[in-house]
């Protein structure tokens, strides 16, 4: 086998492996997608049907059901998730840099952020509600953004500590010799090399916010309901409206998938930056 053939075989094997992986990992989403196109009694047929006459009823219900405004919920989720993860990243990169390179006070902040991460957030439901009630911020996106930022912060702080730690110190030292100050080092040297990390942290932050259920639900009434909370309305007092819920989940994966697809590009771009500088 020539080298070229070998390489091609390797690529084919990789693609096959990746396809199998995707099928296994996304099994929940795939079966959920099928469910979204099933009528109630197709859903309840035993054994489950794989081939059936698809129906769009579920999507129609989700998009046009009385006071249920799923488009608004999707929009809210999107805005909240983008802003929350952006704020969290802006807050944690300098903090992580300080903790890794300067120690000192950083340990205290690290400790308290970790505390935030470790206590089940549920315990703060009442006091958080009290605060936002006092400032008349209930049912606003701002309140939810504040909370989501808090939830994203601990993980992204830790991750940036990890990423910065793994960077070779020489890059910064070279820049410092050239007379760059800390801010310049951060923005001109560090951020480009950190790009893959920023990309993945942004994706994770976005997902954390998009998926957050409890606080979004408690703080929202009508105007600022998120897609996750809106979807939970299909879990009713007794039954679960499976078809509608599957359709709502399917619809809400589309914007997130697009966001991830775009954000993950930075993962690859960072590689070139990293290999040049490293």
């Amino acid at each position: 086998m020539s080298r070229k053939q070998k390489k091609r075989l390797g690529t084919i094997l990789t693609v096959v492996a990746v396809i199998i992986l995707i099928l296994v990992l996304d099994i929940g989403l795939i079966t959920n997608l099928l469910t979204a196109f099933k009528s109630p009694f197709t859903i309840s047929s035993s054994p489950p049907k794989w081939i059936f006459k698809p129906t769009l009823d579920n999507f129609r219900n989700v998009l046009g059901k009385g006071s249920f405004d799923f488009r608004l919920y999707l929009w809210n989720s999107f805005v909240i998730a983008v802003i929350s993860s952006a704020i969290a990243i802006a807050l944690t990169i300098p903090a992580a840099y300080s903790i890794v390179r300067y120690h000192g006070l950083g340990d205290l902040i690290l400790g308290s952020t970790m505390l935030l991460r470790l206590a089940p957030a549920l315990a703060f439901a009442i006091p958080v509600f009290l605060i936002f009630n006092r400032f008349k911020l209930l049912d606003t996106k701002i309140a939810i953004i504040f909370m989501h930022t808090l939830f994203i912060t601990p993980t992204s702080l830790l991750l940036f500590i990890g990423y910065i730690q793994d960077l070779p110190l020489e890059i910064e030292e070279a820049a410092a010799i050239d007379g760059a100050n800390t801010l310049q080092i951060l923005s001109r040297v560090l951020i480009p090399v950190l790009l893959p990390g920023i990309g993945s942290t942004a994706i994770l932050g976005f997902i954390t916010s998009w998926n957050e259920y409890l606080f979004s639900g408690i703080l929202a009434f009508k105007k600022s309901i998120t897609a996750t909370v809106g979807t939970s309305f299909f879990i009713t007092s007794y039954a679960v409206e499976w078809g509608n819920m599957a359709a709502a989940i399917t619809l809400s994966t589309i914007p997130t998938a697009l966001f991830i697809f775009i954000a993950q590009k930075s993962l690859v771009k960072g590689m070139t930056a990293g290999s040049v500088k490293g």
Partner: protein
Amino acid sequence: MKKVLVALIIVAMMLCIAPSAFAADDMYTVRMVYWPGPESDAMDVVLNYWNENKAEEAGFYVEQELFGRDNIMLKEEALMAAKSSDVDLFFTASRWLGKYWMHMEPLQPYLDNPEINIYGADTEGRIPATVDGFRWLDGTLYGVPMDLSNHFLYYRSDLIDELLSNEEWQATYKKIAMEQLGKELEPKDPADWTWDDYLAASFFFTKAYNPDSPTEYGNFTHGKVMGPTAFLWTNCYWSFGGDWFDADGNVAFDNDAARQALAVWKTSFEKGLTPESSVNGEFAEDNEAMIAGQCAMTVHWNAGYATIDAEDSPVHGKIKVCAPPAGPEGHFAYNHTLGVGISKYSEHKEEAARWAAWLYTDEAAKLYAEAGGIAPSKAVLEEMSDQFPVYGYMVDVLNDCGKNLPPTAGIIEDMACGLLADAWNGVIDFDTALSQLQAEATEEMSYWQ
């Protein structure tokens, strides 16, 4: 180029999903917390009717605020703790009133005030037990019962008919009953069943004990750790003479009635009379199993009927309901009511009260029932039983043997379902579970007196 395209798609998507602005109006809008699902769909119809036809006369609109089943009460509790005036009416269930009455406004004075109650509505139209469900122990009325639920024994009438006419089946039935329960039992009409008959029939319709059984399992028993599961068991507990509280209002679980009732439940799980995964099953799982034709009977909520016996259901026309089986004390059918009450912290109590008064009218009850909600008005339910046969069955069963839990039951609901589930799943033995439940529930109640 590709990037620009993707960006364009995103912008286009955002524009599509961007919300349209809401129209503003001068009139106040009363806000009511309500439970999403069939209840809120029905309420939507009532609200639309109100906002179009009644709002002007009354002077305000009404809207509902929804939240998913599992956290709706947490959200309400946050509103209560914050003394928030954001909502004017709270959602509650009759069994939860004991937890929340102190945050709600007594309703009777408003109903008695003709300036507020311009409809002359009174509580007479509702089934008395459901109105009483919204009274605290001292008799004060706190809400409007809106949606009634109860338990039935569901059974596959085609299979039971066969059993009652096929001699070969009857012989097998007697043999299995003798083998498994050590009792001489004859096949009977499910309306006359005791829990022994229920178990015997369950054995008979389980393939593992009767290879000729048309169904895989005899029954579906709800086992998930959640309050409603404990309520289903309560039918059995009552029929053996027990109750959650004794006559003096003290917790009463550590008794023989509880052991006997637990034994019935445990038999189903331990002997595999119910699907294996029903230990984590509840309403939805029960529906799926019945529709799939896997089980011959189940003690289940009335709300399941519409789905299980729907036109296009494979078991349509083969499902009948009656009161849950009897014990030494006879038949009992659990029921409870969901409803709304005025928030103590509302700044528009009079409007909220006018709305609540209107909800008590038969006009509102009928609108609600026509939209699929089960308004607990006897007249409306009976009138509509042609259209929705299950309404008629509900009235019958509740007349015969309806019983509800007191408003304090919600306080110990969670510990009851946890320990009872541990007991019937065999995680811990009956004595430990019941004595622990007795002690914990008694202590918990002491904080709520």
